[in-house]
């Protein structure tokens, strides 16, 4: 539960995109650059309005002609020490792909909201996670939010982790397109004073400065390149405890906690654990409550951090279950598995624990996942718990008549 009922007096009913734009504003960015693309558009429209109204001091909004230019502009601005923010989705994120590696390799803590959307062809504007999952190996932190409140609260947290001197990596704060970006519901808009307390000004150790010339990401021959890659991985590992710490400190200051690297819901005694990321978790928790009311021990593991991948935390959370089912809104075509499923299996393989894990790829291109489908998945996982795996990974609800 990421909504704190005690916050009710502070809540306002706004669109998820507005809550996120407002959160970006109170993080006091110095440069914003973005190119509009559905369903991210409302976020950048709201930010443009804030800029036009003079509500973001000491900030420049750079209009560009593409996402490639947007992220390139931010590589420059971040290198001179400006706190830099963007938002994008789908084909826009894919167009940034090359520069994402540069931003990470240059160790620039740019933060970007991704309003997750399917990728074409065929053209599809609706939600799944194929866009950000496809950026898995670019060296960006990648966190996934469950609801609009968490999508907003995630921004100061991820800025703080990314700008930490032991980390210095860019980060994506992912929220499900439309499902979270276009929903109106009560949220607490982040307070400026609390955010100033939580997130100090960005104080980079190294900046591009004509008075003190230095190069970023210029060239590395075989005798040094490997060490740059090693340092990137080391920074990712350093981010693991920082993500936990930032979530905890956020909770102390703002009174809301959405989980650190993971968040466990009724997992302690669970025989079947359902794992996933993003907005589907709310629906899953509602279904699990129905099972619990009937005395069935089902639990939910929310994975908040996809990169860095919290192997230890996941192992610990699921090791005592009789079966685990992983729901992925993405697929690695050719492996017939979603990424969270593959990586969860991978992190269990060399542990001494041998529990059956199955996967479903769900919600492709915005296909709705109703409660009944979640219940069907849980029933399958129960069978696996008692009699083993028959199908390891599958699509949830393919319409045979359309094939």
């Amino acid at each position, binding site marked *: 539960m990421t909504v704190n009922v005690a916050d009710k007096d502070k809540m306002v009913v706004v669109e998820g995109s507005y809550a996120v734009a407002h959160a970006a504003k109170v993080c006091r960015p110095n440069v914003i650059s973005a190119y509009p693309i559905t*369903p991210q558009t409302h976020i950048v429209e709201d930010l443009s309005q804030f800029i036009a109204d003079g509500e973001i001091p000491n900030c420049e909004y750079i209009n560009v002609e593409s996402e490639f230019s947007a992220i390139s502009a931010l590589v420059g601005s971040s290198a001179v020490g400006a706190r830099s923010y963007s938002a994008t989705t789908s084909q826009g994120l894919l167009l940034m792909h090359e520069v994402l590696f540069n931003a990470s390799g240059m160790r620039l803590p740019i933060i970007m909201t991704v309003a997750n959307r399917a990728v074409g062809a065929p053209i599809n504007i609706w939600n799944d996670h194929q866009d950000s999952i496809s950026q898995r190996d670019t060296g960006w932190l990648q966190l996934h939010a469950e609801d609009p409140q968490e999508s907003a609260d995630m921004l100061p947290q991820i800025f703080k982790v990314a700008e930490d001197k032991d980390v210095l990596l860019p980060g994506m704060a992912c929220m499900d397109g439309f499902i979270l970006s276009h929903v109106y519901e009560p949220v607490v808009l982040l307070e400026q004073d609390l955010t100033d307390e939580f997130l100090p000004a960005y104080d980079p150790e190294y900046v591009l400065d004509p008075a003190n010339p230095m190069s970023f990401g210029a060239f590395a021959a075989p005798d040094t390149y490997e060490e740059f890659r090693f340092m990137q991985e080391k920074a990712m590992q350093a981010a693991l405890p920082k993500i936990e710490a930032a979530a905890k400190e956020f909770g102390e200051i703002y009174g809301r906690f959405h989980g650190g690297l993971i968040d466990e819901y009724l997992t302690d005694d669970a025989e079947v654990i359902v794992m996933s990321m993003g907005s589907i978790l709310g629906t899953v928790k*509602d279904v699990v409550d129905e099972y619990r009311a009937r005395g069935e021990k089902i639990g939910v593991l929310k994975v908040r951090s996809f990169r860095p991948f919290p192997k230890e935390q996941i192992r610990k959370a699921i090791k005592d279950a009789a079966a685990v089912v992983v729901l992925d809104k993405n697929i690695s075509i050719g492996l017939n598995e979603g990424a969270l499923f593959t990586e969860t299996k991978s992190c269990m393989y060399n542990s001494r624990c041998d529990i059956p894990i199955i996967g479903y790829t769900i919600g492709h291109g915005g296909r709705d996942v109703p409660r009944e489908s979640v219940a069907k998945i849980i029933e399958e996982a129960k069978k696996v718990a008692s009699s083993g795996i028959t199908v390891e990974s599958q699509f949830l609800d393919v319409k045979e008549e359309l094939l």
Partner: protein
Amino acid sequence: MKEIRIHGRGGQGSVTAAELLSAAAFEDGKFSQAFPAFGVERRGAPVQAFTRISDIPIRLRSQIYKPDYVIVQDATLLETVDVASGIKDDGIIIINTKETPEDLKIGTKAKVMTVDATEVAMEIIGRPIVNTVLLGAFAGATGEVDVDSIKNAIKERFSGKVGEKNAEAIQKAYDLIREEKA
């Protein structure tokens, strides 16, 4: 939890109505959620928007298949859209039309109520904008939200005379449907 589906045509403000309804329910002390049927926003095309109202925070993010209430902004939709789809047997369908529920012959066990929101809108607002008017009828028919909360939500969104006129029309539709109910 109560689930509401609003049928309209692109440009009639179905999404705005769903949002205002969620704001009003929140003002009443409930939790609420409003969302459109994503990606079909073409002027004149049949569109849907949804609201959930609950005493506890709402985690459910799937679409609404079995609504408690349905609001139909444009009776011409009855020819092409099954507005009663999935509605609960004890639910209520509120339709903007001059006709009576009996005339419409909608195949449903749910209660059908009609209100001439277009006439109310023309008389008070001077334009055939019915989305807010129907929220007044919704408050009167269902009792799920306070009509004053609806009016406050409108006035917050549309300041000055526009908000005032809408509030007046909302009250009128509320009164009309209360009479029909009684």
